[in-house]
């Protein structure tokens, strides 16, 4: 295999693997559910995109034709990761899971849970 293709694919693969590891460490170590949602949905999506781009480069070089079918998975994951995160956050709010005490804006939790407009600020009207 061509040396430069190998270097580019290896760098992309390492990039993706490191971001997947960062997402998993964040999932294991952050303190509550709403913080833990951030690590897998952002870092892991970037990591899987790196691995898929490396796979795209290598398969395109091996088959000597442009293989863009890997980009399908990237597109699908980029579309579905925010939807899954939104649904998990709604389920966590519905089950009354408390965030840690330093979380700002905790007065909005009941209105978000009941899907009402936010409460009026005291300095208005």
């Amino acid at each position, binding site marked *: 295999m061509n040396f430069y293709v190998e270097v580019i694919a*290896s760098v992309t693969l390492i990039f993706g693997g490191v971001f997947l590891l960062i997402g998993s460490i964040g999932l*294991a170590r952050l303190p509550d559910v709403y913080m833990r949602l951030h690590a897998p949905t952002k870092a892991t999506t970037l990591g899987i995109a790196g691995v898929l781009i490396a796979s795209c480069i290598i398969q395109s070089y091996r088959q000597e034709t442009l293989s863009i079918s890997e980009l399908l998975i990237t597109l699908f994951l980029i579309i579905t990761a925010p939807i899954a995160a939104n649904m998990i956050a709604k*389920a*966590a709010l519905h089950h009354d899971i408390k965030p840690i005490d330093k979380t700002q804006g905790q007065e909005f939790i009941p209105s978000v849970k009941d899907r009402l407009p936010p409460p009026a600020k005291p300095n208005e009207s």
Partner: protein
Amino acid sequence: MLDITIQIVGLILCASLILNLYRLLIGPNLPDRILALDTMFINGIALILLYGIAIEHAIYFEAALLIAMLGFVSTSALCKYLLRGDIIE
């Protein structure tokens, strides 16, 4: 050089899967466990693609696509069940 890279990234992915399994086992609430399962699906896709690179064959791409779709469907079904107590109303 690609062989060594594939081995290193495989080790990284195995460590990620072990961390996800730790969160899946100790997770204090149900949304934690669903989130850990979703992340395990994504790491599994990466591991399957890595195996597809290692054996120099493109047959495993379809498996990765199927697992991506099943992961999203199972995550949303579990969240829907937790939210409503029912999946198809």
